[in-house]
């Protein structure tokens, strides 16, 4: 009987916890988007037989691996910090990988996927761009076209803050994807 009187209060406490989880997801990312440094990552050449999975565009990035790091220090699924540097072409890449959080500079919290020889391949916190399902096939076609070796001008803009990276926009032909699709539609 005593417990029954507490049920409404306990339920209220549970609601607060349930709200806290999505709220934290939103707040963390909004802070990163508003205060984070912008980096552009070029998309990698796409295998023409890749098929569109569901209602998002699957992204493949050129800078999804890092070299020049001792591969023996890292194992599958290890958490690590990838140091970001901007290349002469204005696009971001990873210069090195650390196990400890760096004290300064731009870095991204990543996971190790595997290494082959001297390169370590990374699992990045942005691998997809969600699209409205009727636009997705067109976006996928445009993305593939602009990611081929002959016309590689698709890239993503990512905001990075304290190791967290949030995908801001997908650019195709130099324009945000929705704007590109709107301009290209008859």
């Amino acid at each position, binding site marked *: 009987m005593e417990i029954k009187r507490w049920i*409404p209060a306990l*339920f209220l406490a*549970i609601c607060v916890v349930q*709200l806290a989880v999505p*709220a934290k*997801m939103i707040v963390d990312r909004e802070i990163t988007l508003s205060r984070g440094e912008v980096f552009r990552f070029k998309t990698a050449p796409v295998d023409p037989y890749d098929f569109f999975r569901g209602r998002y565009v699957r992204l493949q990035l050129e800078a999804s691996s890092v070299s020049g790091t001792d591969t023996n220090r890292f194992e599958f699924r290890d958490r690590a910090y990838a140091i970001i540097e901007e290349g002469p072409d204005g696009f971001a890449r990873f210069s090195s990988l650390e196990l400890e959080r760096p004290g300064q500079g731009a870095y991204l919290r990543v996971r190790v996927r595997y290494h082959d020889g001297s390169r370590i391949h990374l699992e990045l916190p942005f691998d*997809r761009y969600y*699209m409205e399902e009727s636009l997705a096939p067109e976006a996928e076609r445009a993305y593939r076209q602009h990611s081929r070796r002959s016309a590689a001008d698709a890239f993503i803009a990512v905001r990075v803050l304290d190791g967290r990276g949030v995908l801001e926009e997908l650019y195709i032909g130099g324009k945000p994807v929705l704007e590109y699709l709107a301009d290209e539609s008859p």
Partner: protein
Amino acid sequence: MKSSHLKWLYRELPDLISRGILPEESASRLREHYGPVGDEDSRRRLALLIFGVFGAALIGTGILLLVAHNWDELSRPTRAAVAIGLLLFAQALTGWVVWRQPESIVLREAVSTFLFTAVGTCIALISQTYNIPGDLDRFLLVWMLLMLPVILLLRVRIPAAFYLGGITWWSFAAEDGWRPFFWLLVALLLPLLVKPSAGRTTRFLNGVLLWTAAPALALSGFAMIPVLETPWIVYLVTLLAALYAVGLQTLSGEAYRSPFVVVGLSGVALCSLFLTFEGLWQWQYREYNLESAAIALSVFGLALTVFALWTGYRMVRRGEWAPALVCVSPLVAGTAYLLVGTATGIVGALVFNIYFFALGLLMLIGGLREGALSSANVGLLMLTALFVARFFDVDVSLLVRGFAFIGIGLAFLFMNSRLLSRKKEA
């Protein structure tokens, strides 16, 4: 007892009393024991419950589908606000029931089911809005853990069934080292089952939960394959035998009504049938690993084995040989596995061929002795399945196989007709 049977009994009581067959006092005690026949109110409540929960689940799913449409027209903050708003609405609805109608099982089940889908939808929508990569295991775990306190607080079974489905799915998506924590997540639900059921609606809900739990627990055995490597066979058979033992120990009424008996027995029988094939054991022989056998025979596996064997001992004392043989399947699997390590792959297949044949035969004989058509047929079906399985393995002429099939078919017909005529005479 079924309400139709109860109605019949209550109809007979006055006649039995008047003819002096049953004293008045015994009749009153019978009425007290079985309670009233399911009256119109409780049937209506059950119907309301079913429709209410379906409606809530459909609404929640419909909202999820709308979410999946990707509302590109809305700005990012607006989409985030919609996600939070949906969750707040579901919480407010549930809170109103908790505050105003806490005794209504129907409302509690319906709103908590809606809240269940709202929590998942909210997290999914935020993931879409911010293009967060899909870590399925993390998403499922967070979703289930956020709902668990609501399930325990409101004592709701339908969301508990969804929870079981969710954590079972999680056990397949999680990294190997985390998978055994599935059992901890299951154990967290135990307080829900402690209170004995009362009333038709609660019994129905408990039934839904138990019929979800049994297959979920059985399936989790497969999720442990990467954790245990080759000894997973021993673990799986042990798990299924333990489920069967739980069913036997808690049985009240007919065996087919117990989800643990049905799932456990089917699971042991199907696993055993697969283990009669030599190919699987040759793979075991090649990949044999005694070190990970130690993991399989860990405290948890040992506890399951002891429980199953103890139940088997009780069945032997009751003269129920077929159930006893199901309960000792962990020993059979363990023995086969150890023999494979010392000899060759075919030994494992041989052990299980003998075991499966013995199990089928005992079920057939037990069914014939007790006049139980279903047990006898299951036994004969098992023997037929073994024969068909060997049909693909063994090199025997088509003529022999043809005669054998005809023989088994005739045996089926003969046995069923004898049992049916015996029932009619009784």
